[in-house]
C-alpha cells in the first residue's frame, strides 16, 4: 500500500514511522506540511514529535497546517489515518477524533515501556491482534492524559471505539485508562504509545509491527 508520513516542523518520529511502514512492506513517502496533496496515499500517518514546538498546547498550531485540509478530506472519505503521540494530539485538536490530551497527571514528561490491552480489533490497524491481547510499547510524552466529557467517554465505550487501554500502569492519568481510540468510521486511529518503536527484535520487542502490517485491508 502507499503510505504517506506527514512532516510538520518539529515532527521527530517521522523517520521512525517511515521505517516501520517500510519494514512492513509498504511504499512510503514523506509529505511536507505545506503540501496540499497527499500523493494518492492509501494510508496517512501523523507521526510523533513536537510540531511547532507544542507551544500553547500539543497539536494546537499544527492542526492549521495547510496539509490538514487534505488529511481531513482523506479521513472523511473513509481512508486510513493513524496518529501516533503528537499525531494523536493533532487529530484531537483538529476535531477528527473526540476529546483532548491534557498534561500528564504526574506533570512530567514520561518515557517508559507500558503494557497495552487491545480492546478493538475492527480497525485496519488492529485487525492483526486478538481482542484482549496485551502488547508492550514505549510511551514518550508530556501531554498524554486522555480527557473527554462523560457522555463522550460513554459513547466511545458503547460503540467499541476505545482501541487500546493501559493495562496496569497508566503513565499519564488518562481517563478510563484510554491509550488509543478510533472514529465512528473506524478508519482513523489515534494512540499515545509508539508502536513504531516496538517493531524490531533488536530494539527489544516486535509487538507493534502488526499495526503497520495493516492486516485488515
Amino acid at each position, binding site marked *: 500500500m502507499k503510505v504517506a508520513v506527514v512532516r510538520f516542523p518539529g515532527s521527530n518520529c517521522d523517520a521512525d514511522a517511515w521505517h516501520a511502514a517500510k519494514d512492513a512492506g509498504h511504499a512510503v513517502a514523506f509529505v511536507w506540511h505545506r503540501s496540499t496533496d497527499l500523493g494518492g496515499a492509501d494510508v496517512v500517518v501523523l507521526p510523533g514529535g513536537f510540531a511547532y514546538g507544542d507551544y*500553547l*498546547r500539543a497539536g*494546537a*498550531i499544527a492542526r*492549521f497546517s495547510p496539509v490538514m485540509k487534505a488529511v481531513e478530506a482523506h479521513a472523511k472519505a473513509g481512508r486510513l489515518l493513524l496518529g501516533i503521540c503528537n499525531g494523536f494530539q493533532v487529530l*484531537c*485538536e483538529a476535531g477528527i477524533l473526540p*476529546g*483532548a490530551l*491534557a*498534561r*500528564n*497527571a*504526574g*506533570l512530567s514528561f514520561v518515557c517508559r515501556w507500558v503494557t497495552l490491552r487491545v480492546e478493538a480489533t475492527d480497525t485496519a490497524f488492529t485487525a492483526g491482534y486478538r481482542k484482549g491481547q496485551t502488547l508492550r510499547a514505549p510511551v514518550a510524552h508530556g501531554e498524554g*492524559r486522555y*480527557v*473527554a*466529557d462523560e457522555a463522550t467517554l460513554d459513547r466511545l465505550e458503547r460503540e467499541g471505539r476505545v482501541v487500546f487501554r493501559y493495562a496496569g500502569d497508566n503513565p499519564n*492519568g488518562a481517563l478510563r485508562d484510554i491509550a488509543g481510540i478510533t472514529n465512528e468510521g473506524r478508519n482513523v486511529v489515534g494512540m499515545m504509545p509508539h508502536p513504531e518503536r516496538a517493531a524490531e527484535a533488536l530494539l527489544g520487542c516486535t509487538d507493534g509491527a502488526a499495526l503497520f502490517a495493516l492486516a485488515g485491508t
Partner: protein
Amino acid sequence: MRWRVRVRIMPRQGILDPQGQAVAHALGSLGFAGVAAARVGRTVELALDAPAEADARDAAKRMCERLLANPVTEDFVVDTAEALA
C-alpha cells in the same frame, strides 16, 4: 489604534488540574498556611491593532475560540483591553 488585550484561559471545572494541586501542595509544605486550593491557567497578552476597544475584544474572543483555548478542557475570558500609546 493599538490595544493590549489580555485573555485568561483556565482549566474547566471538573477537569483534573494536577498543576493546581501540585502548587497548592507545594505551598503548604513550604509553610504557607491557608491555601485552600489553587488552579493554574494561561494568560495570553496580545498587542492588537483595531479601530475600537470593542473590536479588539471581539477579535481576541474569536482567537480564543479558534486557537488559544481548547473547549474540551479550558474556559476563557477576555480580561482587559487597554489602549497602548
